[in-house]
């Protein structure tokens, strides 16, 4: 019954990080690329072997020897939601390492080891079935990222690294307290058992405080509106690959935690939805985040900061869809996680390529790059459009579904949907503003003071980095139903109580129960 694949998925990068730290400096980057590609291959094998129709956990791994007292054990397993996030992680990591290829000259061994360790930690969060192990991996992502931002980052790196660490750590210690509380009362740390316990046995006040504690950890990581302030700084100061991973995967740990723990434990009870006012409150936070993030992004001078604030805005959509608590919303939200990882990760990569050439990200100093770098311009525009949500590219489907979810939700409703839709317009405004300024218009580049030749267009390595992302963006744009259908069962399992509730109420329309995949297939 035990499948070795998930253990391999964790062990390869972890062992690779340790071995890589001992190899000669010249071999560090090739080794890291090798390891990350090997992890990607394991990911592909998992994707091929995965039984898409089956709703439970697959590739389960349990080992009684790896157990702690008090019912915690090192148990692994993925369902289709986790599968897609695992695939996102294993895809982004080789690309990030390739993007660091020429850039990281200072202490490359340490850098690549931290990257691989970070990958192991992130994958660990997605593949575990135990809440304590979940927390262990969740916290563990902080350490490599702290060093990656703090050592290889921009001029403000120290403050950025500290702020990143302290914000997320402060939030998540409450999550730890809640996890121990749940684990103690449920007698086990198995997430499924804890969810069952929480649904059947928690009193309202217990559930409320547990929910708050879980939200404290995950909303900082996502980040939701008032606790987002670490994100722009960390994104801006991190090296390119760090920003890619931060935006692409680390933020998804927060949304994944919300989906996997906070919603089933705190919100969905045995036969009803607890705390509609908390959902409302969260909804407002998301909507404020969407609009505020967009407005702040609009006025940024630093392109990287602009994209960072766009993440605040986009993650608002993602959480809004999730708390709509219907199939459209939740499926859209999971799809949003993947899409945001792809398109924002790609945008950070492209911006990193511009920065490597001109050593500036100032929107005022750059203009008309399309004239000098047409290939880069093509990718930049493509990913921007994907990020805006142009139909035919990936962002559209997920944005549409999350807003549809918000509109049709029993718990949110038209007001939230309207404001979120306003956010889409604003998103188009600031993204197109950025493209118009940097890519089009008269050619303007910063004075190189006579150093070196005029930088050329992106080379083969950089094209090779961007092409897989571009393919994924287009593929998910024209055929999202594959992903949506695969996770239908997993999503239904999460929102099961609501389905029961609606059936109980004789909900004739079964609003929210039409699989989103069907919707996506409609013309």
């Amino acid at each position, binding site marked *: 019954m035990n499948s070795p694949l998930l253990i391999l998925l964790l062990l390869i990068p972890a062992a690779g990080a340790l071995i890589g730290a001992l190899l000669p400096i010249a071999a560090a980057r090739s080794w890291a690329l090798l390891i990350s590609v090997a992890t990607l291959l394991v990911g592909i094998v998992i994707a091929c072997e995965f039984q898409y129709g089956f709703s439970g956990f697959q590739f389960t791994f349990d080992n009684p020897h790896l157990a702690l007292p*008090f019912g915690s054990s090192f148990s692994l397993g993925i369902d289709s939601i986790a599968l897609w996030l695992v695939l996102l992680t294993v895809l982004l990591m080789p690309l990030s390492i390739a993007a660091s290829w020429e850039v990281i000259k200072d202490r490359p061994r340490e850098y690549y080891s931290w990257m691989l360790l970070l990958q192991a930690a992130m994958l660990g969060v997605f593949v575990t079935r135990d809440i304590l192990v979940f927390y262990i991996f969740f916290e*563990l992502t902080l350490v490599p990222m702290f060093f990656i931002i703090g050592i290889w980052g921009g001029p403000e790196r120290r403050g950025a690294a500290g702020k990143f660490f302290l914000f997320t*750590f402060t939030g998540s210690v409450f999550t730890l307290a809640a996890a121990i509380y749940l684990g103690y009362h449920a007698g086990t740390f198995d997430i499924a058992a804890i969810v069952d316990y929480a649904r059947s046995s928690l009193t309202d006040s217990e559930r409320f405080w547990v929910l708050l504690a879980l939200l404290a950890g995950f909303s900082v990581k996502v980040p939701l509106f008032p606790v987002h302030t670490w994100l722009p700084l960390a994104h801006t100061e991190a090296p390119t690959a760090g920003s890619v991973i931060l935006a692409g995967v680390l933020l998804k740990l927060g949304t994944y935690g919300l989906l996997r723990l906070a919603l089933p434990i705190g919100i969905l009870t045995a036969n009803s939805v607890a705390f509609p006012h908390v959902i409302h409150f969260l909804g407002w936070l998301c909507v404020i985040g969407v609009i505020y993030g967009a407005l702040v992004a609009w006025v940024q001078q630093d392109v990287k900061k602009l994209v960072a604030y766009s993440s605040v805005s986009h993650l608002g959509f993602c959480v809004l869809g999730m708390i709509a608590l219907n199939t459209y919303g939740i499926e859209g939200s999971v799809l949003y996680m993947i899409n945001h990882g792809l398109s924002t990760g790609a945008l950070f990569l492209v911006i990193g390529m511009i920065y490597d050439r001109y050593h500036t990200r100032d929107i005022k100093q750059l203009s008309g790059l399309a004239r000098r770098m047409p290939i880069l311009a093509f990718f930049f525009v493509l990913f921007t459009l994907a990020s805006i949500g142009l139909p035919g590219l990936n962002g559209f489907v997920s944005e549409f579904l999350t807003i549809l979810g918000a509109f049709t939700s029993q718990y949110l409703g038209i007001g939230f949907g309207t404001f979120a839709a306003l956010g889409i317009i604003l998103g188009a405004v600031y993204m197109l503003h950025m493209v118009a300024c940097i890519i089009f218009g008269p050619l303007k580049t910063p004075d190189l003071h006579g150093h070196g030749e005029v930088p050329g267009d992106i080379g083969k390595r950089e094209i090779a980095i961007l092409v897989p992302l571009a393919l994924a963006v287009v593929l998910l744009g024209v055929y999202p139903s594959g992903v949506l259908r695969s996770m239908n069962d997993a999503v239904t399992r999460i929102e099961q109580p609501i389905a029961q509730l609606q059936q109980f109420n004789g909900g004739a329309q079964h609003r929210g129960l039409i699989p989103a995949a069907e919707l996506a297939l409609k013309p």
Partner: protein
Amino acid sequence: MNDLLRAMFPEIVLCAVACVLLLMGVSMKAATRRAAPVLAILALLVAGASQLSMIGGSAPRLDLRWNSVRIYEFARYVKLLSSAIGVLLVLLAWPSNSDATGGPAHHFGTEAAEFFGLMLLSIAGIFLVAGANDIMLLFLGIELASIPTYIMVSISAPRAIAQEAGVKYFFLGAMAAALMLFGFSYLFGTTGTTRLDLIAQRINPITGLTSWQLLAVVLLIVGFAFKMAVVPLHFYAGDVYQGAATPVTAFLSFVPKISGFVALLKVLFAVTAGTWHIAPQIVKLLWVLAVLTMSVGNVLGLVQVNIKRLFAYSSIAHSGYMLVGVTALISTTNYEVQSTALQGILFYLTAYGLMNVAAFGVLILLPGRLNQPFTSAETFDDIAGAGREHTLLGLAMAVSCFSLIGIPLTIGFFGKFFLILPAWKANLTWLVVILVINAAVSAGYYLRIVGSMFLSTETPGPRFRQQPASDKPVHHPMPVLVSVGISMAAVLWFGIVFPATSRLVTRAATAAHIEPAVNSPVAAVSQR
């Protein structure tokens, strides 16, 4: 007589070797000074091994005749732990310069043998506290653990600041001892016996403690609070930790603390007749002390510029965490919860000892400033960029700091885990909340250490490197490295390898009864 000898074998070994060491101190030869730490380590290993042989075997070692010593699993655990950490602490203070008069961060001149003799006496004090069944012996143990440290602080370095620290520590320690003795006198006066097991029997189980006995317990808590560096008796910590040479600071952060905690647990056990059920005022008192200690320690830790001083406040904060465990222990009547709490405290003591040795070990190896001889790196400027220069040392410091914060995959994480668990079980919601907030606050200053070592690019100030090579004292810091290596390996091993963590916790769980309940058959045997 035989029983007594058998029961007190480790203490006898330690004290005998300590006496030999004190005699050896007469010699002025460097060879004697080099032999002294070896002898000390051997003594500690023998003392530890004598406990090891009993582990698992359930036979307690009791002094049947006078009932002054009763050694059960709890005492064994404490003795094993303190002899193991004791070995690491001796390694930190190794006389590593060419004429064996000091190390990179301390200088005891020709008094090396005395220094290690005092160390052994101090550790023998913990052994006595752990096994004592008599308040006189308990008091003696606590003082035996403390008095050598006053001398060690003063002889650790020929600096005025060390002398000042030693004197300050001595006077405040004497006051604490007086309060403690005052408390013991009330305990004796109201029960008419000095034996802890008889005190337990003579406390009225229905009415609980009389007001005189309550006063005694409060006075004792105050006295122990000084040893544990618990707010509001923490004022000495900053000055003493900063003034003492770094190896002695490491010693101070562990030995008095564990003796204080063990004594507190034993006294609470006795005055509650093993039920841990005590007057609500005492529970409230400990609750308040825990909150104050955690919060004051961590908040003051944030504003320190001297790293040794910072570790003093960190040490205060960690006492606060352990007091959460003590509060959980006495605020519940559920036996299972009580065992979890005791187990958590024992586990945390282990974790704390290991991470502290590693942190101080790294500090010892980092050179201090030129104008301050006989001291290690003291300020954030001193360690700026050190992690870039010495990657492994930097990593060791980073791991111990992350462990002190409580980041997973280190022993510190499980330490916090096993303290939060009993606190939840005892329904101490607010205490858990305050504990986790404090963990987050503490991340602020521990990260500053990691940050200075790895992230800052300031060129280090006028430090050892700029000294002409000929002036540099030659050190062979291998023993310190070994100590750091061992503690680091343990911190990671018990954090990463879950089965090992499980075993350590299970071991702590078997030790999680100070003694069998007072009226159990085993206890009856001892009273024949």
